[in-house]
């Protein structure tokens, strides 16, 4: 480096220091007192501000300025700017104005909405817009559509649909009671965070058919099978759980008489006593919307027209709902059968019958299948480190 350049760095102009990132200057001199940073063993007083602090404020006053205020209708993450502090060109719009899926896919790889520069796997996913929330609430509460149906129609997970209805109900209650709401806050959040708009046809908010990865399927298995017989997902589930293959007469794919995999809700237990485990179902039965598989099969059938398909789809939903209601009722009746109610006016006591037998407590008396105290086993709240905070709050 030439001597001239060094001299220039040693005597920085104040305007230059204030304007942009003269990191070279900051590294040698305190921008406040224009003297060299304090050195060890030096008695010369430099400045109160440390070098690190000066560097921070230098960053905050230059590139960091971008983050001081939100950018209207767009995200404002660290990754939205390049190294020089300029906004990158092709970023997705926060209002959900996304291009077609391929472009979005490409964008996810290059410049998605990533709040953390180092973590390429965390993406700021869109939230539901106010209109979409209201629409979900309307379809469920006014049109009396089932949550399952609304979830498929709008591309929103079923649990989310339920939560939205619950929250919207609460909001309406608050509005009716004239309780103060955080409206400016809500408006600001919706302008900062990407959101899914309400459109016709609806833009899917998220994937609705997520299959949880079961821990039984994690180990790799080597399973030799015959070529003369097709090996399908039902078989795979049975192999993973150590169950024998279905006999041909019970296998639909071999022409046997049985329910289709997507409809199969029966529970089959295998294993020796003490090591029983349920047989893993095929993915068809374990996804949240198995009825969609039947609907897709209908679409492949050339004999069915659109109207028929539509009717069959809704018939399936109705049937599923009735089944579910029936099961719920049966469970309630079962519980009621074993409960005695004693109403004292102030409290209603629910008394359940239970038995403590060797089957429940085990031979050593320490088993947990039966209620009650176990001899020699300290109760949970006396153990070291166990915290006595509630584990659930009843609604």
């Amino acid at each position, binding site marked *: 480096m030439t001597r001239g350049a060094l001299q220039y760095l040693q005597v920085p102009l104040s305007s230059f220091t204030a304007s942009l990132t003269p990191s070279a200057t900051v590294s040698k001199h305190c921008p406040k007192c224009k003297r060299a940073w304090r050195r060890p063993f030096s008695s010369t007083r430099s400045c109160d501000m440390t070098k690190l602090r000066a560097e921070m404020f230098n*960053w905050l006053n230059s590139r960091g300025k971008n983050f001081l*205020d939100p950018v209207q209708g767009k995200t404002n993450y660290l990754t939205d700017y390049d190294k020089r502090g300029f906004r990158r060109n092709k970023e997705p719009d926060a209002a959900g104005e996304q291009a077609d899926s391929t472009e979005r896919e490409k964008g996810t790889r290059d410049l998605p909405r990533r709040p953390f520069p180092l973590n390429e796997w*965390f993406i700021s996913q869109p939230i539901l817009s106010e209109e979409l929330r209201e629409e979900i609430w309307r379809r469920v509460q006014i049109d009396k559509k089932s949550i399952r149906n609304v979830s498929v129609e709008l591309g929103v997970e079923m649990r989310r649909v339920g939560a939205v209805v619950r929250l919207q109900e609460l909001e309406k209650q608050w509005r009716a009671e004239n309780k103060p709401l955080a409206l400016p806050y809500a408006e600001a959040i919706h302008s900062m965070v990407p959101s899914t708009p309400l459109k016709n046809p609806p833009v899917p908010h998220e994937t609705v058919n997520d299959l949880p990865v079961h821990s039984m399927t994690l180990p790799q298995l080597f399973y030799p099978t015959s070529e003369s017989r097709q090996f399908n997902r039902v078989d795979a589930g049975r192999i993973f759980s150590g169950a024998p293959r279905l006999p041909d007469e019970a296998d639909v794919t071999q022409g046997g008489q049985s329910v289709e*995999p997507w409809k199969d809700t029966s529970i089959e237990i295998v294993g020796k006593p003490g090591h029983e485990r349920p047989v893993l179902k095929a993915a068809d039965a374990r996804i949240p919307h198995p009825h969609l598989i039947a*609907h897709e099969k209908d679409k492949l059938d050339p004999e069915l027209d659109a109207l028929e398909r539509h009717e069959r789809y809704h018939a399936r939903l109705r049937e599923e709902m009735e089944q579910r209601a029936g099961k719920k009722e049966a469970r309630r009746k079962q519980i009621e059968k074993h409960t005695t109610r004693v109403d004292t006016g102030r409290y209603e006591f629910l008394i359940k019958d239970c038995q403590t037998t060797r089957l429940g407590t085990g031979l050593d008396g320490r088993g947990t299948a039966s209620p009650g105290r176990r001899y020699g086993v300290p109760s949970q709240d006396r153990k070291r*480190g166990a915290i006595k905070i509630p584990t659930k709050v009843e609604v």
Partner: protein
Amino acid sequence: MRNRARIPLSKAKVRQSWSKYNLYNLARITTPPYKTRTVFQQKWSAKSILRAYHSEQVREGMWERMFSRRLRSVVPMNPEYLARNDGSLESAGRGSGLESSFAKRRPKAIPYMQMTFAPLERRLDTAIFRALFASSARQARQFVVHGAVKVNGKKMKYPGYLLNPGDMFQVDPERVMFATGAPKGLSDLSSPDDRAVSRSEDKEGAASLEDQSEESSQDEDEDAEEGEEKEEDPREVLKSLLAQAKSVISNPKGGKLNAKQKQNLRGFAKEVKRQLSRRDSTTSKSHDLEAQFEELKAKLLRKPNLPSSQAEDSSSSPNKEEDGEKKEESTTTLSTSPPQLNTAKGKDYDDDSMLDPEDLTALRAALARLHLNPIDPTKPYATPWTPRPYMSAFAFIPPFLEVNQNICAAVYLRHPVARPGMAEVPTPFAQVTGGDAFAWYLRRR
């Protein structure tokens, strides 16, 4: 509990916080080097920086009990594909070569190692921070301890409560506004021209703020003076009011106002208040937006020096007016009194030509804005409410929460999962670091 959540600059630690120190650290951190260090060193530093971010408020023993080596993940399924193929295509072992379609739709990797700290996302304080109800996990913790948080409608005072799927938590909206709003007393002087305007505004602004704090005595005097002085020309008032209204609604919706706009907003608020509290008012003061708008419209469209309304002003006693002032002082968006529609509505304005509908909508929008985001010096945050500095760089809501910002309530839908190409646990570090930390807690050192 001692707050160990300092954000030192010498060791770039990232915290769950929206402070500018944290933002600076977040911008400059790098993945710790691995080539020059032993495996133990790598794991140690990885777990230390990850713990500093995710759970500095949780003791090591507590976290070790919470740690689970089972990492949740999901794979999105396509029902159309499931309908066409029962799985025998894959098991046949054919068609998985490079040129087949199978190779093309090879799914992305599932980033399991970013899920190491997933169990901590169940904690109530962390969930409040993730739902953007608090500006740091520490503040969220304080909200819980101070009793401002409800879970399923019941007060919950334990920050370590582990939310179950389907639990709803609510935070007091006032606290949320305080936590996420710009701090009071600091004028945000982001740009030089703002600074210039605000300097000139200082005297005026201070005066107007004072006005609002001790309104009842001052305003009464002013009103009295005015009443004696002369009747203002409504046209003039209308013109200035409209100009201010247009400035008020011109600003970006969620964004920050600059100093000039703030000045205008304050002026508009003051003018509206003055117009509504004039002696010749025939109705009591109402807080309802519609009623206020109607009243204002009626006043402005009235012809100058109409005797009909003058006659009534003696009927309104000063006591009554004082009450009204006090009520108005605690300006909230929603009123407790029912809207009282103006009796003067029908009789007074026959002069609609003065206002074109555009002006009227502008006026109404500005009034609505004033109602939505009022100027209120009694609040512990700067009013009108604006997001706090550097908030937008941290603003995201993970998909396992469903948040309703209006009532500051959220539902914990499910546990966070990893899916192809994406992990739902917000962590600022790379997957290598997560993997090292995971290996540390597997206790195979």
